[in-house]
């Protein structure tokens, strides 16, 4: 049984610039993979290759065992795509958009009508089905996009930055629908994101930075690599204090935007020692589990730019 998605040593350059540099990964049927990376990390290039819109310079990418550059149409039948920018015709109704998409996938007649009605109902769009898309809210439009992408019952659903441009409640609802869809159909999901929180919801995460895949695994596995806990210390003179802490307690400190970050196997024990020695210099201490952002920083040696937090929403 072939993997739902398999990518081997995939590269793509634009002139001298290597946008994607020897990326490899596999996704089994039914799994959900999040491709996490900052803007400009190579996510969009990878997405465009997987959805058959861009030819790789080297390596190969397969959907259900079908090479996306050779068996293009066969691969296209097996993928459903949700683009970051809307792909609906705003002058058509939701129903008309779905019907049109069905025709492009060779569906017609009563079986198409049944699927359109079924998809609109499942995504709770039945009462707005005959409104022009331009009158629908952003969240509703994204749901119509999803309904359209899965109309032909693809084996793999590929989404490019699905949360971008949605408000928090619309984003939550979109994720619920995605989970529900997965449970019902067993579809394999592959999505790109620059939101840490979104990657955390996936079974597997592949971290992409400057065209290279720097780490991959389940979120728990990746965070486990850091080992132990993450302590964040807020203080007034971080540089000075961090030096004193690393000398005094013999541990590695990192400065992150005016705070001190320490990774420790036994967080609470270290905090006790810390407060014993430096209580006067410390304003606040938080103890947390490592996040994918910590993983990113450890693997790349630099901060995760272009997001990381949902509130830093753009567009």
């Amino acid at each position, binding site marked *: 049984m072939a993997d739902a998605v398999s990518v081997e040593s995939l590269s793509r350059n634009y002139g001298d610039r290597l946008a994607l540099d020897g990326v490899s990964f596999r996704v089994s049927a039914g799994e959900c993979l999040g491709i996490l990376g900052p803007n400009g990390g190579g996510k969009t290039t990878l997405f465009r290759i997987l*959805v*058959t*819109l*861009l*030819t790789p310079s080297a390596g190969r990418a397969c959907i259900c065992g079908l090479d996306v*550059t*050779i*068996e*293009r*149409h*066969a691969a*296209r*039948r097996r*993928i459903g*795509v949700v*683009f970051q*920018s*809307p*792909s*609906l*015709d705003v*002058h*058509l109704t939701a129903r*008309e958009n779905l*019907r*049109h*998409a069905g*025709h*492009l*996938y*060779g569906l*017609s007649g009563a079986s198409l009508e049944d699927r359109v009605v079924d998809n609109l109902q499942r995504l709770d769009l039945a009462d707005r089905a005959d409104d*022009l898309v331009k009158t629908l809210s952003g969240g509703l439009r994204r749901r119509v996009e999803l309904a*359209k992408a899965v109309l032909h019952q693809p084996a793999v659903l590929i989404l490019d930055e699905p949360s971008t441009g949605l408000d928090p409640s619309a984003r939550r609802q979109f994720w619920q629908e995605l989970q529900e869809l997965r449970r019902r159909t067993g579809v394999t999901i592959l999505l790109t994101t620059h939101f840490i929180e979104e990657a955390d919801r996936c079974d597997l995460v592949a971290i992409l930075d400057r065209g290279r895949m720097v780490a991959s695994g389940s979120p728990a596995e990746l965070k486990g690599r850091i080992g132990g806990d993450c302590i964040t210390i807020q203080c007034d003179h971080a540089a000075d204090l961090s030096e004193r802490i690393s000398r005094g307690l013999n541990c590695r400190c990192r400065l992150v935007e005016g705070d001190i970050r320490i990774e420790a196997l036994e967080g609470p024990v270290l905090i006790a020692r810390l407060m014993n020695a430096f209580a006067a210099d410390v304003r606040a201490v938080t103890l947390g589990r490592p996040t994918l952002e910590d993983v990113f920083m450890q693997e790349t040696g630099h901060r995760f730019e272009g997001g990381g937090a949902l509130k830093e929403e753009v567009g």
Partner: protein
Amino acid sequence: MADQSALSGSGLWLSCRSLWKREMVRFLRQRSRIIGALGTPLVFWILVGAGLQRSFQLPGASGTMSYLEFSYPGAIAAILLFTAVFSTISLIEDRREGFLQAVLVAPVSRTAIVMGKLLGATTLAVGQGALFLMLAPAASIPLSWVSFLAMLGAMVVVSFAVTGLGFCVAWRMESTQGFHAIMNLVLMPMLVLSGAFFPHKGSATWLSWVVSVNPMTYGVSLLRHALYAGGTMAEAAHDVSTTTALAISLAFAAATVGLAVASVSRRSGEPG
């Protein structure tokens, strides 16, 4: 490892028809486009025609043809051109972000994508041309069923050619502003230097030369021949035979449509 492509006849027809239908629905839901495409050449034709009415005389002719009558096929050509521009402009937004990206990831042959668009634009252009044709009696042009049908055929050929051209330009454009700039630069001279609005006999040599290599000249000529099909027209109004006009117009249409299919296929490096 043969690609089970989407080229089966019924799939091609289904997607092509669906893309065509979308063009129709969009057009009918945007009233400003109907007004713009039909109104512009009408106003142009009436104003210019009325203004030049007195000073116009066909060289060597006995003066039996009014300017409104002479420029009538040109006004039809203008309708076809304006409609082609309006219909292909949506490609620019559609392609980079929007509707077309979803079409391009569907298992649809690239030929169907181009043909859906061109058939849609041609239907609209010919439909508006036919409406305008009803005004022929107002310019004292007798319109028979034969000439009406001949005009429909000629309009289909010319429309395919100019929408194909519009498609090729729009496909390469990043912005609608750029598209307008190129269209003004290319299409307006093509229209003006086609013998549509002034007979080029008696004009400067270099100008006649430009007119004779302009494919639109033959399109306008084809429309002129069609308009008088089954009847007679002033000899001096044309100097290209029906066969030549038809052959060059068909070749022009085949070239622009072929180029459009090639452009769409090349982007993703796949066969049409």
